[in-house]
C-alpha cells in the first residue's frame, strides 16, 4: 500500500504525467464547481430568509465569508508547499506554491471588496482601519510581494526558493487575521461559525454557506491545476514532452 502511494507520488512528480493527469482532472473539477456554486447561489439569493437586523444585505456573506476562508486556506496550503520547496526541492511543489499566490490574492481581493460593499449599508462606512480589515489588507500585500519577488528572478527555481522564505515569514499574519476579532476591539464582528462551540447562525441560513465554502475549495483546486500546468509547460518549453503534448497535433490545450 505504502509502496503504491510512493509510486503514485513519483509519477505525479514527472512533468509529462502531471500535465496529462491534471488535464484529465480539470473538467471534473469545473463541473463540480459549477454544480456546487449554482446550488449555493440559488439558495443564497432565493431560498434563505432575510436577517432580522440587516435584511437582505447579509446575502453578501455567502460570497464574502467563503472567499475570506479560501484566501487564508490558500496561504496555509502555499506555506506547506513552501516547506516542501525549501526542504525537498520538489519541482511540482515549487510551481504549485508560486502559482497559489495570484489565486490567493484574487480571493483576498474578493473578500476586501465585498466586505467594503457590505460594510457601507451595515456599519455606515466602506472601510475602517481596525485590526481585522487591516490584517486582511496586509495579506493582499504579502501575496503581491510573493508574486513580485518570484517574478524578479531570472532563474525560476531559485526565485521559488527565495519567495518560499517570504511565504513562511508572512505565515505569521494568518493567526493574526483569525484572532484579530478576539484579541482587540474591532468594528468587524466576531466569528459566526466556530469549529469548537456553538455557531451563531440560524440553521435555516447555513446551507448556502456550506455549499459556497466547498465550491471555493474546488475552485482553488481547478485554478491551481490550470496555472500549474501552464507554468510547467512554459518552464519546459525546450523539452520534448512539451513539444509533443502542447504543440503536437494530437494534444489538446
Amino acid at each position, binding site marked *: 500500500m505504502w509502496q503504491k502511494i510512493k509510486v503514485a507520488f513519483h509519477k505525479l512528480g514527472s512533468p509529462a504525467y502531471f500535465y496529462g493527469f491534471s488535464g484529465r482532472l480539470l473538467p471534473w473539477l469545473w463541473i463540480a464547481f459549477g454544480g456546487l456554486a449554482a446550488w449555493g447561489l440559488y439558495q443564497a439569493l*432565493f431560498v434563505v430568509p432575510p436577517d432580522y437586523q440587516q*435584511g437582505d444585505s447579509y446575502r453578501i456573506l455567502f460570497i464574502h465569508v467563503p472567499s475570506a476562508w479560501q484566501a487564508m486556506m490558500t496561504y496555509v496550503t502555499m506555506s506547506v508547499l513552501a516547506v516542501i520547496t525549501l526542504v525537498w526541492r520538489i519541482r511540482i511543489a515549487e510551481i504549485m506554491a508560486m502559482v497559489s499566490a495570484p489565486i490567493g490574492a484574487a480571493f483576498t481581493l474578493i473578500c476586501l471588496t465585498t466586505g467594503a460593499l457590505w460594510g457601507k449599508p451595515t456599519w455606515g462606512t466602506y472601510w475602517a482601519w481596525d485590526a481585522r480589515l487591516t490584517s486582511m489588507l496586509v495579506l493582499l500585500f504579502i501575496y503581491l510581494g510573493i508574486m513580485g519577488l518570484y517574478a524578479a528572478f531570472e532563474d525560476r527555481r531559485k526565485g521559488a526558493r527565495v519567495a518560499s522564505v517570504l511565504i513562511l515569514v508572512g505565515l505569521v499574519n494568518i493567526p493574526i487575521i483569525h484572532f484579530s476579532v478576539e484579541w482587540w476591539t474591532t468594528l468587524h464582528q466576531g466569528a459566526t461559525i466556530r469549529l469548537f462551540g456553538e455557531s451563531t447562525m440560524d440553521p435555516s441560513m447555513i446551507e448556502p454557506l456550506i455549499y459556497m465554502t466547498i465550491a471555493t475549495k474546488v475552485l482553488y483546486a481547478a485554478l491551481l491545476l490550470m496555472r500549474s500546468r501552464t507554468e510547467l509547460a512554459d518552464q519546459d518549453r525546450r523539452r520534448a514532452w512539451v513539444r509533443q503534448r502542447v504543440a503536437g497535433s494530437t494534444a489538446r490545450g
Partner: protein
Amino acid sequence: MSEFLEMGSHGFYVWTSYAIFFAVLAWQVCQPVARHRRLRAQLIEEQALRKGNYEDEAR
C-alpha cells in the same frame, strides 16, 4: 421580480458584490488560458521555423 432585484433597498451592494466575485473569477480563468494559448502559438511557430516550411504554414 423588481422586489427581488432591490434586495430591500440594498440591491446595489448585493449585486455589485456578486458581480465582483464572478468578474475576478473570470479574470483568474482567462489569465492562464491566454498564457497557454500564447505558449502553444509560439511553440508551433518555432516548430514550423525549424522544419523550414514556415511560409507554407503561414498561408
